[in-house]
């Protein structure tokens, strides 16, 4: 566990590193996400102060983008594409099996903090649909077995 002092020191550093950019608010929030895996609550007032913005403005940016999270993600992140190309290739059945096995809906993390499941609209892998991304690795022609296998789990047998 990091002490809060360390978190704010690390935040200050990330904010400082990105301050010189044109339009720094979004790139800084992305950099914070890369550093911490999410945007810690204390980042909002710190970034607002550093950029001379209101907290509301920073919160507005933070809440607009699907990939900026205000809570830590699971140790594994499973992202399933649910857009048209993947629908045409059967992504809904893959998603249903993954949801059932993990016991979570898209956007949620398993109770043990192990896996976060997310819906994404398009990875640009549409000739090899359905597409998934598991812990940052893109997977083509995804099946529930391969997606779950990548995080060391197997498909829950039908009831």
């Amino acid at each position: 566990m990091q002490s809060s002092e360390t978190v704010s020191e690390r935040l200050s550093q990330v904010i400082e590193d990105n301050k010189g950019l044109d339009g720094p608010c979004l790139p800084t929030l992305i950099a914070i996400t890369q550093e911490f895996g999410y945007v810690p609550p204390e980042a909002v007032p710190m970034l607002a102060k550093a950029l001379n913005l209101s907290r509301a403005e920073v919160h507005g940016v933070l809440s607009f983008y699907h990939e900026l999270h205000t809570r830590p993600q699971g140790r594994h992140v499973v992202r399933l594409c649910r857009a048209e190309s993947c629908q045409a290739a059967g992504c809904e059945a893959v998603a249903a099996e993954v949801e059932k096995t993990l016991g979570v809906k898209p956007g949620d993390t398993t109770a043990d903090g192990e896996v976060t499941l997310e819906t994404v609209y398009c990875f640009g892998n549409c000739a090899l649909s359905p597409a998934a991304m598991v812990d940052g690795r893109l997977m083509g022609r995804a099946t529930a077995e391969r997606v779950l296998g990548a995080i060391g789990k197997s498909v829950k047998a039908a009831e």
Partner: protein
Amino acid sequence: MMSEEMKIFVPRDSAAKSVGADEVAAAIEAEASKRGLDLQIVRTGSRGMFWLEPLLEVEGRGGRQGFGPISVEDVPALFDANFEGGGKALGLVEEIPFLARQERLTFARCGIIDPVSVEDYRAHGGYEGLTRALGISQEEIVTAVTDSGLRGRGGAGFPAGIKWRTVMDAKADQKYICCNADEGDSGTYADRMIMEGDPLLLIEGMTIAAIAVGATKGFIYIRSEYPDAIATMKEAIQAATAANWLGYDIQGSGKDFVLEVRSGAGAYICGEETSMLDSLEGKRGMVRAKPPLPALQGLFGKPTIVNNVLTLAATPTVLAKGADFYKNYGVGRSRGTQPFQLAGNIKHGGLVEKAFGITLKELIFDFGGGTRSGRPVRAVQVGGPLGAYVPDSQLDLAADYEIMAANGAMLGHGGIVVFDDTVDMAAQARFAMEFCSVESCGKCTPCRIGSTRGVEVIDRIKAGQDREKNIALLEDLCRVMTDGSLCAMGGLTPMPVMSALKHFPGDFGLPEKKSVTH
């Protein structure tokens, strides 16, 4: 016996990697060292024949011999056979019909060269366009782009030359070139392939644009779902800068152009140009009202060219080979080539660069080989999530901006998503509304609220509740969204919805012949 300098080409394209290209490359390296063989593995982009990925190529007699799709288990046998013949041998890659029948201008190098090698790029005709641009006036560059008939490849099809002229003529202390690489439409991946397979082409195109209009700073806005494209673009920018093809005093011309990659953070709407500009400014990606045009008041209020990846990537060809060369491809007012992308339920999914005018049927069957499931094609969505669903009876449509529009469809960014006869078109219509409700920026009411109401109305129709009344309501709602939305998100979401209703009324519980006025 294998020659000492044997070269093996394995794609580093993220789609190829998604089916094991990295593992295959590692297996080749391990096998070579086990056998004490000297070979060089070159990581390239993809040729765009994804059903053959991982597609491995070996320099051989008469050109590159292809092998695919290769798995790790296939590797020892390839070595045993000295990379000659075998069950996975495809012959000369250039002669594979899918590739041989294409007209590759923009994608001429993709899959062939090391994407981040300036030397490789130049050996294959790279930087000829920029070299020519540096020797002529701004006026002449813009005239060449105008005369080529090049239109914006992002979907709207706006003539690139007109946009460039507006920015060139604008007076300002700072101008920007912004590349829209927020390729969010399902069924499209051409931008990604260029950024991963021939990023220097995009850099060259942006540099030509910068010199043409007097801009010194550029941004490439890449969606966060494309981590490989972001990394490769950054690598290529470094390589181009190191070779003085980017940065200050480019090739001793006295011209400066600095380029920066910016990542999105998962927001489909940021592919809309004004929303992208707000996002580049670090803000929420809210759509702006036009006018003012971004060409006059764009990024940070300065004159800005906003072009799609494929538009900018077409300009080096226009400059290197002349406007007439480019213009001689295509039909009507759609000039040049379009990289079409075959996606969804398709047997041979991949990238087909062809002159405008090819029919959907030729693309789906002659190139794509029909559905992957082997079932009949029922519907095809052309132009992304905001594009119409075209029924199988209309696949004779030519891929041309005007012909598609005249038939209530749109070409968009050239993505073609194929569905077989198991598709429920009412569910697809519902998804179009749902997608809009999730991805709307929320600025205008028809899009923000209309999309949510749309989902509800379609649910009622599907449940058989007051079906005729709810159909009328849906049609009315779609008209309001079309006429009243600020941008294409709300304005075009009715396209997939109404086309599904028009062509597949049975899926909505209506008699098959119900005609819909829209």
